[in-house]
């Protein structure tokens, strides 16, 4: 049995199509990531999987339970951490945890070992109101609350958004340990650099899964060589490269410009250096973000063609 199975999931709102016929399977014990920008449909997908929304078409199961029919079962076995902070700001850390434990009929003492690793970070502040915690501590508390009833599967919707880099690092390490204990974790994030933490990732963009594989395999999906050009005149460099017929998928990447190249390097390097003497050109290994930018550009073009 798969932990999660989705067939042709479609979700429409009044004037937006949030999900276009998604298909995927998540193994038990896997850490599976949905990577995509804001508005890709991640939250809609998570809400369907946690039985909070009904899909317009298609079906999905979580631990073998249908997300529409068996919503009661799903609510018992899954832990969910919504994207928005959803604890009570006027309740203290301890009171929030107690509340969620009682609502799920769980015993804090009995399940303390599940959250010890995480909760111990915030335990010194247990009398503090949740609204006064820092972003990272809020997320740790929310994770503790989502774990306290010993779920079989954990859904985390953008758990690291708005969290400082150190806390993000810590957070992912905690998730890694939870996974080792046998928990299936489904997580979403807009940060491409976090993708490597997952066993498998699905790149989601405008309601479509562009690619699904292990992070390494995803990185190898770029065909041709990927080059990076860095120079003082970033914008002119971008315009110039876009005008070259040998360069495809030219896009800005931080301070640099990344592009795919077909043909002879020497020739190309010379041509660029003629225009931009200070430019640093090198061939690079594609990152998840490169793949995403590549694929999403293709997808956008395809849509344009279709809409014609």
């Amino acid at each position, binding site marked *: 049995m798969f932990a999660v199975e989705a067939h042709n999931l479609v979700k429409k709102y009044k004037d937006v199509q949030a999900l276009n016929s998604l298909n995927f399977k998540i193994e038990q014990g896997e850490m599976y990531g949905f990577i995509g920008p804001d508005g890709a449909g991640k939250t809609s997908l998570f*809400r369907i999987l*946690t*039985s*909070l*929304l*009904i899909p317009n078409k298609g079906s999905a199961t979580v631990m073998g339970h249908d997300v529409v029919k068996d*919503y*009661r079962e799903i*609510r*018992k076995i*899954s832990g*969910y951490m*919504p994207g*928005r*902070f*959803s*604890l*009570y*700001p*006027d*309740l203290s850390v301890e*009171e929030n945890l*107690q*509340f*969620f*434990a*009682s*609502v*799920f*009929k769980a015993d804090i003492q009995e399940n303390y070992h599940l959250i010890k690793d995480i909760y111990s970070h915030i335990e010194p502040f247990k009398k503090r109101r949740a609204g006064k915690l820092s972003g990272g501590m809020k997320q740790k508390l929310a994770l503790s*609350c989502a774990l306290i009833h010993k779920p079989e599967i954990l859904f985390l919707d953008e758990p690291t958004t708005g969290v400082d880099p150190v806390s993000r690092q810590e957070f992912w390490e905690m998730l890694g340990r939870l996974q080792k204990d046998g928990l299936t974790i489904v997580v979403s994030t807009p940060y491409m650099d976090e993708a490597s933490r997952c066993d498998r990732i699905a790149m989601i963009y405008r309601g479509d899964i562009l690619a699904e594989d292990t992070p390494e395999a995803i990185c190898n999906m770029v065909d041709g060589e990927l080059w990076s050009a860095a120079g003082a005149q970033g914008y002119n460099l971008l315009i110039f490269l876009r005008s070259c017929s040998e360069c495809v998928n030219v896009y800005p990447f931080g301070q640099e410009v990344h592009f795919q190249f077909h043909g002879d390097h020497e020739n190309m390097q010379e041509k660029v250096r003629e225009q931009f003497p200070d430019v640093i050109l090198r061939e690079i290994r594609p990152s998840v973000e490169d793949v995403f930018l590549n694929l999403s550009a293709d997808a956008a073009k395809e849509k344009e063609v279709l809409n014609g």
Partner: protein
Amino acid sequence: MKQFIGFFRKEFIHIIRDFRSLMILLLMPVIMMLIFGYAINMDIKNAGIAIMDMSGDDMTREISDKILSSGYFELNEVISDQSRVEELFKEGKVKEVLVFEQDFARKYNSEGVAKVQILADASDPNNANMLVNYTNGIIANYLIQKQFSEFLPLQVQSRFRYNENLESVYMFVPGLIALLAMLISTMMTSISITREKENGTMEAILVSPLKPWQIVLGKVAPYAFIALSNLIVILLMGTFVFGVPYRGNLFLLLAVCILFILMALSLGILISTISSNQLMAMIISMVGLLLPTILLSGYIFPIENMPDWLQYISHIFPARYFITALKAVMLKGLGFLYIWKEILIIFGMMMLFLGVSIKKFKIRLA
């Protein structure tokens, strides 16, 4: 059960942590009771009056004495100049001026017709109306006594049943209970449920195994407690501070009040299911319910005086039935058999609100 206690605990913490709102909730009945009991007084006592007696004979003096000794009026000034009337009204010192024409007694005895003029300050129309009626009544009485000095062929005796002294506060106790039940039970519950939607915490609660009725009951129960404690405060203040009698069966009285509070709570739940944010819930409760409860329930303005279409509309507001029933039990001491219709209507409304709420309560996000 453990789930419910956890929920209840959490909800109570919310209320206690919000200290200012809590104080408002607990002190409101006391303050409103004092305001309604003391300040809003519709009885007339010692209204300022001026008398212009151009005749100054026995008869005008007798009439003046009668009026001044009635307790409703207090002599402010005796005037002799017509122009002073205007001044007095403008200064606001007197509400009424009584003018006797010259040779009042002589004209009465010889011609059989004597004229007295009553001038009233009608910038407050109800008050002016009452003053003029009182004055007319006193003068008419005087005439009857004068004509049949010893033997009165016709004796009119009036008595006000159930509220002998026409105390306004008797009327306010039922009205205030209705008002506060609406305010606390309906408005506060609808706001507190929609707050969870607005803050996104509803999402976290919905994914729990809690059933809808457990969520709703957990949210409502603390407010039911507050409403009950307010009810007790009002009832106690009513008898001990204002001397309102509770003539009927105390259990029946409490039962009617509790039923009304439960109805108000279900109404609050219903409002929360149809409104998506706190502001909307508050506007519906305030404009849609609180104002009509005050204006259309017969609490302040008698329903019989309203135009027909307003009377029909007043039928849909539960406070109307509650106030009728409570007055019957409280002041008239009537039993269940006299008010079963009202009780049935309130109960029916409660079931309707609950039924629709349960049907409309979303177990998912919309």
